[in-house]
């Protein structure tokens, strides 16, 4: 079976190369047969990659320890769930898994466009297959997943215990899908540049792909945060680690792109900028992979460091040169007659929003690579950690939150101060009043006051947008409020789905603010029967017990959680001692409420005296991060659903000078 896998990958490499060459020759010579042949080859690449993945899964599930990858990342005692997840737990497997997602998406793109976008498709195929070719080269020549050992070890070394967690089984697939999804709009952008068809066809064709990629990038980041929160046991979910930053940066540029393309769709403007954004987004996905694989910057999330860095860096350089060269070549066609009716318009708000997104992306990039720059220039190693990123990005993030509130109430084309005042006065006043109420309630943290006020302001603008829409439908159609609400969303999914996403983002800001400004923590060494207090809870340590299984030895502390003298929950923070490989891990215990989490870590223990060191954290509002993710998912789902009737050409069609936005 493994020979079949190796063979499949070798065939895949040849087919991908063939697809690239034939697509380009077919496009240049206008020979449809060549293009069709290339597309068939691309579909075949998907087929052989599926075979290779199946072969590796088979080897993992049947514990074929003669294969180095299987011996390195699994064992016969590893539960089946994690045995399957071991497919992306190591270097070669994760690259193969990446290929599976990439070639699957390529196949769907080819089938979707078998009867349309024919002028673009040869270049789309060539781009997607060029990316596939790179990854196929990696798994064929650099880090082959089916490499055999000279002997068969009786047992495997097992999956890293830190990866034996539910969130780690869904975090990498989500992130990879997000990363790979960005390749599709990028491929269409390259095709648009190559053919000179630089209208908004490529943007309209890939809108859902971009949303899908953005959605999975969002989820990937959130799942990674949840994993860090539960597994790393330091009481937080985001440490501005280089690998976290690597996943965050393409999300930022992709979000900027999603906003910016609306201007191109509406007004045929910003063509160059949109090209730059999608190219940057794609390059940042490769850069992220480079950071994870190269080990150039140390990270808590990097489990697959290797010598792949130079290959990824070369590929990154090659793709940057190709894409920017194509863009420069097409600059005369990309230069559109950019015009704005007024500085006070939705377009300007979007320009500022793009500036802030790219600003945060740059600040994050700069902080991530600054240690490398410092070492190259001064020969001095330095660390750029959370204090830097929080200081630099917090003001920009709050500016972004403000724009999230302002954007929806400014009209496309031209707004007047009067209309802006009318639209913004109530939400802004509510925001200010909310801030004052918090101040009167004793809150003195400047950033927290600002952030909460902005959250209230943005929520108010969104509620008012829904209210206005529902009222209008009630008046015009005579519908009941709930019917009007459902139909309002259904009739303009893109606009109202976007607002729902914004609600999710506001919820996340609540969590960021709560956990960064009001986190409480306490570390204490206690005897059985001792109590201590934190954040309104009284915690009583009752003792420690042990449990042994063939795979893991457990130490479980028992802590009673009291509130107002009543036992509300019993928590069991754990230490696990994995036997293969020998490694201790922390299993936190959490009492989660909407107001915040009580988060307990068993920091240390004494077997003889039963004394334990407990680290207790109270993380206010952290649940809003996860619920915000759910709302974000709901909003994206609404946005991505196909609209039955085509939306009327909105903002610029009529003679009306002012019109509250449609998107």
């Amino acid at each position, binding site marked *: 079976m493994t020979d079949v896998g190796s063979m499949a990958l070798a065939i895949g490499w040849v087919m991908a190369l063939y697809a690239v060459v034939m697509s380009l020759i077919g496009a240049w010579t206008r020979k449809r047969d060549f293009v069709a042949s290339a597309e068939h080859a691309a579909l075949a690449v998907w087929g052989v990659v599926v075979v290779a993945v199946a072969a590796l899964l088979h080897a993992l599930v049947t514990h074929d320890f003669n294969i180095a990858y299987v011996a390195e990342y699994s064992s016969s005692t590893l539960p089946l769930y994690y045995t399957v997840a071991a497919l992306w737990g190591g270097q070669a497997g994760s690259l193969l898994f990446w290929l599976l997602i990439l070639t699957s998406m390529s196949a769907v793109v080819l089938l979707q466009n078998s009867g349309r976008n024919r002028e673009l498709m040869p270049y789309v195929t060539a781009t997607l297959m060029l990316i596939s070719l790179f990854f196929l080269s990696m798994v064929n020549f650099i880090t082959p997943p089916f490499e055999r050992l000279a002997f068969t070890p009786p047992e495997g070394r097992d999956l890293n215990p830190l990866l034996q967690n539910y969130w780690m089984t869904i975090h990498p697939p989500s992130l990879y899908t997000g990363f790979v999804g960005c390749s599709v709009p990028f491929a269409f952008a390259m095709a648009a540049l190559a053919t000179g068809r630089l209208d908004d066809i490529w943007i309209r064709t890939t809108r859902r792909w971009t949303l899908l990629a953005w959605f999975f990038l969002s989820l990937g980041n959130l799942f990674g945060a949840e994993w860090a929160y539960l597994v790393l046991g330091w009481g937080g979910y985001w440490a501005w680690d280089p690998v976290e930053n690597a996943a965050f940066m393409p999300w930022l540029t992709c979000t900027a792109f999603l906003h910016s393309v609306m201007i191109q769709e509406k007004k045929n403007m910003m063509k160059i900028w949109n090209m730059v954004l999608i190219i940057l987004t794609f390059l940042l996905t490769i850069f992220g992979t480079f950071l994870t694989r190269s080990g150039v910057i140390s990270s808590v999330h990097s489990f697959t460091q290797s010598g792949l860095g130079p290959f990824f860096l070369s590929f990154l350089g090659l793709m940057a040169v190709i894409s920017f060269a194509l863009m420069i070549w097409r600059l005369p066609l990309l230069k559109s007659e950019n015009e*704005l009716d007024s500085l006070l318009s939705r377009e300007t708000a979007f320009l500022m929003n793009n500036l802030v997104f790219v600003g945060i992306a740059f600040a994050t990039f700069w902080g991530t690579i600054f240690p490398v720059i410092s070492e190259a220039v001064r020969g001095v190693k330095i*660390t750029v950690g959370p*204090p830097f990123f929080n200081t630099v990005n917090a003001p*920009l993030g709050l500016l972004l939150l403000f724009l999230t509130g302002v954007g929806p109430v400014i009209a496309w084309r031209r707004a007047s101060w009067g209309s802006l005042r009318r639209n913004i006065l109530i939400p802004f006043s509510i925001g200010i009043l909310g801030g004052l109420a918090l101040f009167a309630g004793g809150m003195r943290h400047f950033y927290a006051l600002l952030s909460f006020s902005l959250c209230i302001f943005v929520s108010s603008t969104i509620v008012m947008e829904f209210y206005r829409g529902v009222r209008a439908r009630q008046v015009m159609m005579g519908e009941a409020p709930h019917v009007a609400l459902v139909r309002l969303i259904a009739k303009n999914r893109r606009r109202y789905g976007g607002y729902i996403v914004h609600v999710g983002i506001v919820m996340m800001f609540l969590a960021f603010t709560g956990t960064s400004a009001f986190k409480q923590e306490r570390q204490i060494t206690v005897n059985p029967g001792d109590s201590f207090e934190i954040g309104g809870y009284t915690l009583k340590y009752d003792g420690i017990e042990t449990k042994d299984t063939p795979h893991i030895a457990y130490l479980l502390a028992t802590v009673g959680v009291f509130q107002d003298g009543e036992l509300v929950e019993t928590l069991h923070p754990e230490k696990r001692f994995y036997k293969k490989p020998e490694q201790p891990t922390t299993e936190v215990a959490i009492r989660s409420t909407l107001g915040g989490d009580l988060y307990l870590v068993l920091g240390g223990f004494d077997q003889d005296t039963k004394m334990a060191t407990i680290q207790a954290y109270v993380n206010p509002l952290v649940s809003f991060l996860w619920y915000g993710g759910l709302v974000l998912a709901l909003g994206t789902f609404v946005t991505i659903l196909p609209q039955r009737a085509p939306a009327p050409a909105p903002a610029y069609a009529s003679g009306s000078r002012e019109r509250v936005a449609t998107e």
Partner: protein
Amino acid sequence: MRRRLAAIVLVLGCLLPLSVVVRAEADPSVSFQEVEESLTCQCGCGLTVHSCNHLQCPSALPLRAEIREQMATGKNKEAILAYFGEKYGEKILSSPTTEGFNLLAWTIPFVLFGIGAMFVIVTARHWVRRRIVPPPPAAPAAPVRTAYDTVLDKELKDFDS
């Protein structure tokens, strides 16, 4: 004038966070947690000394003891961090210092953001002006005179006279 005012506001806006940084660095009061958060654990976890929760961590535990020792001497935060920087190298600090080459780390993002904001405002204003000022109406094309016209003029003149 308006544009200048906008530029000044923008630059001040960009400098504001920087002033926060500088003020934060100069704050003389110190807590154990603050110092812990300003130092990076050297065990490879990538977290700050405060966040590292490794059992019997060979780096975080001695560093915590050393922080306590330093705090006991009555030093302020800056002096304690300077001590650690000197003893273990700059890499132990969890963020770059605000002097020399490291100042670039703090300033470049804000400077570029400020430049970007100026660029966006200037570009947007340019686009607005392009929209407002209609292109001058094309002047009526001057008739192209050929050699034949000249001959004809001359003949007509001669004919009149």
